[in-house]
């Protein structure tokens, strides 16, 4: 499969179908069992990554400010005296995710939604042409989700390539340029309207037969597919 620059690619699949592993393989953290990943240019420095929070240690003694400033780590040389934690850029990023008030607090007081917004601010700080998001909307409230969705759409407007693992089929149909459906040992890649057909979703173990009827209706209402 070939993902042109500036694409917004959704990676879908049931739990355990390999969405996270696929993203990690793209990032070079895991080496693929077969096949290879080629990048247009040098990978590091230019990739923003927001992992699932399973490995994240929220009890680490760090101020919210410093957590967000981590996004600039790749660009900071050892001898650099510049403090990103107090830069205007950081204030702007914090303002975008509505966290100006808690910048000096230790990060363990943040709620799940606030932490996710702080991590999005870190992605903003990274200012990377490639953005990888692994289930960015899991376990956060409606308001935060709306805010973060707007940010992601904005990144696409700016011409960044966005790859995201996601479960919200309706959002994928509405906003994404391409979709990759993983499951049952197969991968289907293409435009969202073509990939997310009832047949594919049932065959690849994503939806049960009775739930699949819903996706057809939904696609019809979005004008993506003529009723079968």
């Amino acid at each position, binding site marked *: 499969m070939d993902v042109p620059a500036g694409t917004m690619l959704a990676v879908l699949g049931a739990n355990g179908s390999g969405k996270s592993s696929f993203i*990690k393989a793209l*990032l*070079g953290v895991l080496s693929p069992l077969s096949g290879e990943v080629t990048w247009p240019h040098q990978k590091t420095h230019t990739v923003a*990554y927001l992992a699932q929070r399973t490995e994240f*240690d929220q009890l680490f*003694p*760090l101020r919210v400010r*410093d957590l967000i400033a981590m996004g600039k780590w790749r660009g900071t040389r050892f001898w650099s005296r510049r403090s990103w934690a107090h830069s205007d850029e950081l204030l702007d990023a914090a303002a975008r995710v509505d966290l100006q008030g808690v910048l000096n607090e*230790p990060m363990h007081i943040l709620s799940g939604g606030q932490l996710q917004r702080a991590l999005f601010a870190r992605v903003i700080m990274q200012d990377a042409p490639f953005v990888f998001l692994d289930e960015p909307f899991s376990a956060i409230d409606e308001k935060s989700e709306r805010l973060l969705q707007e940010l992601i759409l904005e990144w696409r407007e700016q011409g960044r390539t966005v790859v995201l693992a996601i479960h919200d089929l309706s959002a994928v149909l509405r906003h994404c340029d391409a979709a990759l459906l993983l499951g049952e040992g197969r991968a289907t890649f293409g435009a969202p309207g073509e990939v997310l057909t009832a047949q594919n979703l049932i065959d690849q173990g994503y939806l049960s037969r009775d739930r699949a009827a819903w996706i057809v209706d939904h696609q019809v209402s979005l004008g993506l597919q003529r009723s079968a």
Partner: protein
Amino acid sequence: MWGYSFMRRAFAATTVLSVSMAPVGAFLVLRRLSLAGEAMAHAITPGIVIAFVFTGLSVTSLLVGGLAAGMAVATLSAVLSRTTIIRGDASLASFYLIALALGIFILSAAGSAVPLRSFLFGSILGLDDESLLLLGVVATVTLVSFSWLLRPLIMSTCDPAFFESQATRPWVTDQAFMVLLVLNLLGAFKTMGTLMAVGLLILPATAARCWAVSITGQIGFGVVFSLVSSWLGLCISYAFPDTPSGPAIILVAGFIFLLSTLVGPFGFGRRIRLRSFKADKPQTRAPV
């Protein structure tokens, strides 16, 4: 007290040791390796004993033997936990027990002149120039390495997935940290013995966690706490004749730790505040 050169040496040694061990201890605790640190302290014993039996009490052989044994146990247990069903902590525990038993067995079999007691509890009041030099070298290496390692260590401890995606060689950070850990344990081994070596790593760091908001604070509080424990501990063991100084130091550190959990802003006080905060929040979930 200052009239005795062995007391002056003991003060100098524990001061250097405190500054060197605080940053290592901070990350040992934050990386959830507290108990692994204890295990590593025992794991280096056979290396030190073998080096001692064959070359006598030289600092170089202690360094080489200890490093070799420590890295061997760390590597073996890592390989075992990756390739078999045995978990990491269990395999490390198994190897350190073997190593400790082997060390004490060889020590006794060789009919050593160094009593077991000084291996277990150290000989802080009998430090020679070479041992002081070793502590100086360990502290220098640790502090210089940390000036490079601090940022990568923060990231790999706090958010390993992010760190792996950003770093070119993420494993270097983890390995370098293990080497620094073993080096500091070796320094502490000479002064505090294999049983108490980890004390100055863990206790000031856990106490500092009750106070610190940032990692700088965590390390800073750690340095202060271990300095205070070392100095007070030495004074106490001087004031009460025939009391061992290693355990006295650790007891003071333990007292500071207990005090911190009681009055520190992130100790018991914080738990109470968190509970009342939760009670204030409206119930968002509808009853099922």
